[in-house]
């Protein structure tokens, strides 16, 4: 699939969710790194050096939001999608300041992971 990030980081504490997403994007040709917590993801961030990340917000320990802010501090070019189980979720001010919008927020479950793939493509093509 054209336009997908070369390296993708997936952070989700639900193993089946991160694994299925990983398998899906690997099949589409991405190099996928998965982490089940924010701390784990941060640890390997420099080594993995992802172009984009799909991050769950409710995580054990550090939250998805804290992770994203920290990750962006380290990798300012990092693109990200929010993939959350909560329909209540509203985009915080800090993320809006980072150029994120509602279209980058996806509520679990998506019926087809292609929706996320399409979103990533459009995310990568915008500056």
């Amino acid at each position: 699939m054209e336009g997908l990030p070369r390296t993708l980081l997936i952070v989700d504490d639900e193993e089946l969710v991160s694994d299925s997403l990983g398998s899906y994007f690997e099949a589409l040709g991405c190099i996928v790194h998965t982490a089940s917590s924010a701390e784990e993801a941060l640890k390997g961030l420099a080594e993995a050096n992802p172009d984009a990340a799909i991050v769950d917000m409710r995580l054990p320990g550090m939250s998805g939001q804290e992770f994203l802010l920290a990750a962006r501090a380290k990798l300012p070019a990092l693109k990200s999608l929010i993939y959350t189980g909560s329909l209540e979720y509203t985009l915080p001010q800090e993320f809006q300041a980072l150029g994120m919008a509602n279209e980058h927020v996806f509520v679990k479950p998506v019926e087809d992971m292609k929706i996320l793939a399409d979103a990533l493509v459009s995310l990568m093509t915008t500056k």
Partner: protein
Amino acid sequence: MDHAGNEHAFMGFEPHGHCFLWQPDLIALHAISDLVTGLSYYFIPFLLMYFVRKRKDIPYPWMLTLFALFIVACGTTHLMSVYNIWNAEYWAEGYVKLVTAAASLGTAVILVPFMPKFLAIPSPAQLGEVIGKLEDEVATRLSAEKSLESYRDRLEILVSERTTQLQDSNAQLETEIQERKQIEKDLRESERRFRATFEQAAVGLGHADMNGRWLRVNEKLCGIVGYSREELLERSFGDITHPEDTRVSLEHFDRLLSGEENQYALEKRYIHKDGSVVWVFLTVALVRDENQEPLYCIAGVQDITARKNAEDRLAKARKYIANILDSMPSVLVGVDSEGMVTHWNAEAANRMGLTAEQAEGRRMEEVFPRLAPHVEDVRAAISERTPKNTEREMFKEADELHYQDVMIYPLISNGVEGAVIRVDDVTQRVHIEEMMIQSEKMLSVGGLAAGMAHEINNPLSAILQSAQISLLHLSPDIEGNIKTANECGCSMESIRNYVEKRKIIKFLDGIRDAGSRAARIVSNMLDFSRKSESKRSIVNINETIDKAVELALSDYDLKKKYDFKQVNIERYYDSTISEISCTRTEIEQVILNLLKNAAQAMAEQKEKAAPSTIKLCTSMEKGYVRIDVEDNGPGMSENVRKRIFEPFYTTKGVGEGTGLGLSVSYFIIVTNHRGRIDVHSEPGKGARFTILLPLE
């Protein structure tokens, strides 16, 4: 005499004695005869005069006087003859003779006509006869006198008796006079009393003539109208009557005069001298004379201003209370201990179509059939002195189910036996309560859903994604799959063959479908917890409905299960409808949901009387925009209708509906838009959903 003779002799005549030649004898004869005759003649008149004096009964006494004068004159003549024997006074003797002649002639002349009268004078013989008779008469009289004397004796007795009687009657008269005096005294006393009564009576009294002019008035009457007695007596009672009461007063007065009434009484108004209104109770009676002619009227005037004012206030208070009762939206029926209607307020009249006059005095259950089951309650409430309440009692009116609250309050004030029954039609309230319960249910569902959503969505995500990956990894045209299959010593074709034969693909598709449905349920549930979004815009409802119809026509589910194109859509739009502020997508969702339900219901209907039709109507209604979505499908029973907005309540087959569609619609309309949604339906008669959206 000698001397005189000498004088005459001197004048020429000679004394008559000379003729006698002075012969003493002759002279003596003449002289003595004439003297005696003369003196006798003089004597006769005295006798005559005496006679006349003594006998007054002699007729014509003046005749005797004349006769006496004549005799005196004759006597004088004779005396003159004696004188002239010695003297010569013949002229004097001549004059005397002339007088005598005149008297004689007069007497003679007068005597002639009197002759018959003298002849009529009874003669002494006749008189003798008369005297004889008289003597007889005297004798008779004497005897009569004797008997008279005896009479007199008896008379004396009678007189003495009569005297006694007279004395008695005198005494009686005296008594009578005393009595009269007493009566007069009494009369004066009575008069004084009546005057005092009239003057000092505590009511105004007056007498008036037939023109109404006051003839007499007492102090009190003056006081009532504020005029002095003099002022009042110059006026008629018409002058002091209130203009509005003049007509009725005159009518009474006319009837009084015509005899139709003997007296009349009425309450009317006078105008006080100071201009204020005085209410009086007036009684008027007419006094007639013995010929039935009217004499005067007696008017009794009582000042009832204070009472009238009190009555006015009472009437006002009564009116005010009645007004309060009539202003109540509740039916209020007063009944006595026998269950007879004693009060019937405006709402009762309105509900039952009977006026208070028609209803009062009749049996409660007769004029208000819905109260028939409460006759016993009323009796119990009164005897036990405790209120009886029945809430949400069902009744049918015009084939529709209604609810009423019946409250029976016993009257507990002293001496009044009865009860007040308050009946409220609470149908509306019951419906609202039902909706509130529903709303409550949905809110709790919403709250629950919000908490659950995250927990459910994550595993759902794992299920759906895993199924998708599994299917992806079984796909024969993906390079990675082929490679891995080869490494495992088999081809992708054989694997594909295997999983299809073992229906693994079908099961995985099933997992995805079921997972997707579960995800939609969660998503719908979350709609309840979502606050009304600020995505409001000014919307034309007609266009919104058209958009929903368009969506319905292209809806995948609709196309798959029911052919929406087979349904006639009839639009009855009010083109002048006001635009309203609402969340367009939500309203679209609601309309789409209703269209889907209608289409589905009509598709399930086996026997159709008419082609499936959905009517869409819009109109304005008292501050709302009204939308009607009406189908001619199978309709629904009362039980279904009551629960139709409940979450998870569905009539569709298992797996066909979430049971949330109408609940969400309800939530969108009622909670998010502060509108109303209601359904009218009966089995076999289709269903009509009505949405009211406020104009704001």
